[in-house]
């Protein structure tokens, strides 16, 4: 029975996991993801979800346990954030290398030092090279639906890669929104069980997680590269099937007023929701500005992004993470690289904002838009702007 409930993103994810009939959940609490695993334990405790709930003793063990469970053929789930994601860093690469269809939700929170429980994207950005599929969502409903899509995507036999569903901690994780909880029967029809070729089974004994010398390692790693190439198309298909079943389509990105825009603002997650209001305000003042919210962040569907962004004169890229000592934020580096060899390409300006849970308001985003327009007119003085730091003034 589909139900419309008022749920936070954390709870919306828990309901999605319940309806996907997972077999094994490994749970370790960390702010701001805690309520996901709390609600899941309630489901298991009262019999609504028939799963093995493993209360592990660290996040490293959480991912290790779901790797073991997935290797044995089970459908698995775990959730983490921030320090926990950093702790399981080495195991992330193992999960993708072993091609296991694990689904994990990340309530994006900054990394210490200083210790801070509030949201930015530092945690997942610092692990973005791990070979996982990374999807950034910006509403509770989208989180609920993306988890369901994630199982279907991850378990496709031509993909078999783990999926991260990333959402802003507190801003999304604890904010209540109306969510259409999908009907369990329909969900299970949409994501039926898949017979995977390589699982631990005494009838067909295999060796998983081999050691390889330099003569074979590159080939094994290239298999992950190759699988990632197939993901954008696969996600489009999964999304289309979801639309057939549930009537809602999300796509690989979201674009708002980009077709005639001089400046396109690019942002991931919750900032993009706020940015829509800033775009409207600036448009009413006569500025031709649009918004691009990527949904699939890894692997980047390069041609798709370029088809939208190419026509703009300036891209205002808002990063919610610092790549210390680099040439700009992670999203900025990616967008800059995709255009680097094109003779005709937009100018790009990077705003690092919202660090450590600092609020990014509509006015802030309007100001960023205006700074982008000013740089377009008067020439780019500063490429990477640390927006909102007390004591830093760019004179823009």
């Amino acid at each position, binding site marked *: 029975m589909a139900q419309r409930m008022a749920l936070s993103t954390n709870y919306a994810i828990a309901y999605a996991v319940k309806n996907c009939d997972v*077999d094994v959940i490994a749970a370790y609490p960390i702010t701001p993801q805690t309520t996901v695993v709390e609600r899941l334990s309630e489901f298991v405790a009262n019999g609504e979800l028939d799963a093995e709930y493993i209360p592990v*003793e660290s996040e490293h063990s959480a991912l290790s346990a779901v790797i073991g469970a997935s290797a044995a053929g089970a459908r698995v789930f775990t959730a983490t954030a921030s320090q926990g994601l950093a702790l399981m860093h080495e195991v992330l690469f193992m999960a993708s290398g072993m091609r296991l269809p694990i689904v994990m939700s990340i309530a994006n929170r900054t990394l210490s030092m200083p210790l801070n429980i509030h949201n930015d994207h530092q945690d997942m950005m610092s692990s973005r090279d791990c070979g996982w599929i990374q999807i950034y969502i910006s509403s509770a409903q989208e989180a609920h639906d993306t988890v369901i899509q994630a199982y279907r995507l991850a378990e496709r036999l031509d993909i078999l890669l783990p999926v991260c569903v990333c959402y802003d901690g507190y801003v999304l994780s604890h904010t209540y929104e109306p969510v259409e909880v999908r009907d369990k029967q329909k969900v299970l029809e949409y994501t039926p069980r898949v017979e995977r070729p390589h699982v*631990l089974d005494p009838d067909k004994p295999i060796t998983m997680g081999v050691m390889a010398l330099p003569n074979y390692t590159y080939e094994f790693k290239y298999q992950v590269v190759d699988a990632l190439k197939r993901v954008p198309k696969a996600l489009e298909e999964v999304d289309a099937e979801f639309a057939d079943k549930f009537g809602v389509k999300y796509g690989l990105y979201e674009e708002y007023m980009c077709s005639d825009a001089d400046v396109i603002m690019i942002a991931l997650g919750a900032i993009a929701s706020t940015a829509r209001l800033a775009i409207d305000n600036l448009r009413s003042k006569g500025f031709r500005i649009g918004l691009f919210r990527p949904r699939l962040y890894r692997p980047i569907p390069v041609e798709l992004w370029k088809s939208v962004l190419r026509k703009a004169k300036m891209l205002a890229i808002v990063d919610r993470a610092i790549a210390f000592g680099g040439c700009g934020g992670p999203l900025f580096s990616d967008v800059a690289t995709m255009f680097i060899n094109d003779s005709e390409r937009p100018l790009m300006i990077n705003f690092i904002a919202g660090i450590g849970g600092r609020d990014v308001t509509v006015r802030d985003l309007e100001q960023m838009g205006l700074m982008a327009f000013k740089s377009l007119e008067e020439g780019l003085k500063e490429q990477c702007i640390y927006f909102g730091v007390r004591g830093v003034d760019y004179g823009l």
Partner: protein
Amino acid sequence: MDYSMSTVKDLPREEYFASGHRLCQGCPEAIIARLVTKVLGPNLIVVTPTGCLEVSTSVYPETAWKIPWIHVAFENAAAVASGVEAAIRALQRKGLKYKGRKIHVVAIAGDGGTADIGLQALSGALERGHDFVYICMDNEAYMNTGIQRSGATPLKAWTTTTPVGSKWRGKLQLKKDIPAIAAAHGIPYVAVASISHLKDFAYKVKKAAEIDGPAYIHVQAPCPTGWRFDSSKTIEVARLGVLTGMWVLYEIERGVFKVTVPVPQRRPVEDYLMLQGRFRHLTKEEIEEVQRYVDEQVEKVNKRAGYTAIGPVVRL
């Protein structure tokens, strides 16, 4: 199979650990892996962390394992085993897989991956009560990376990170009592075994697998390369470890302590120590110090067992 009454000849003939692996000549881990898979196979899933056994048996494209096997990382053998065990339980309950079969989940790890970096995962898995067996092959150092000391290295042993010089005389700290740590979790079965007493080891492996809940077995694995002795002496060194009382073979079943291989007449510790190059630097005083320490430990064991399970030292 009632292993308490059998002999070596009664071991199953089927082999689940193939030849052609790259472990050293005389490697005890090969003997252990062969025996464990023989006793519990073929309905067995083995989890191994990074270490000599993992690296030498799974170099692509060769694998010595004829039963399902998984390796993930160095410190998470117990966590991965927990996940495998939970998956089997869930899938069986839902009627999706492994219908009607008992599949043993066994983690076979080294002392580094158990006592040091793997202790957290082991402790968590034991506390949660998963139905699996954890076998620690104790070669008393990080052998795979070149004989560095671990928490399980005994006092005064030479390793590459506890060398013998003017300031240091080998390892300065005592050996971690890992079976005691496992027993402190209140699990139903803890045992200490040695490859020299194969019948006893097989019996313990079988018992651990059949008991419901976590079981921990600590096996002595004398390493010819790391302990510095001739490769033909692996079993002999193991046997002397037992006969000198330095390695007591016991089991704790539901809290009841029992010495499974009593030693009526103990050999002096130098019979064991002097066979190994890693103790070559010990002076007469240091050997006496070790003897006194072993005497104390033996007294504690006898008190716990309620009788003189390990007898007095008899010099031949």
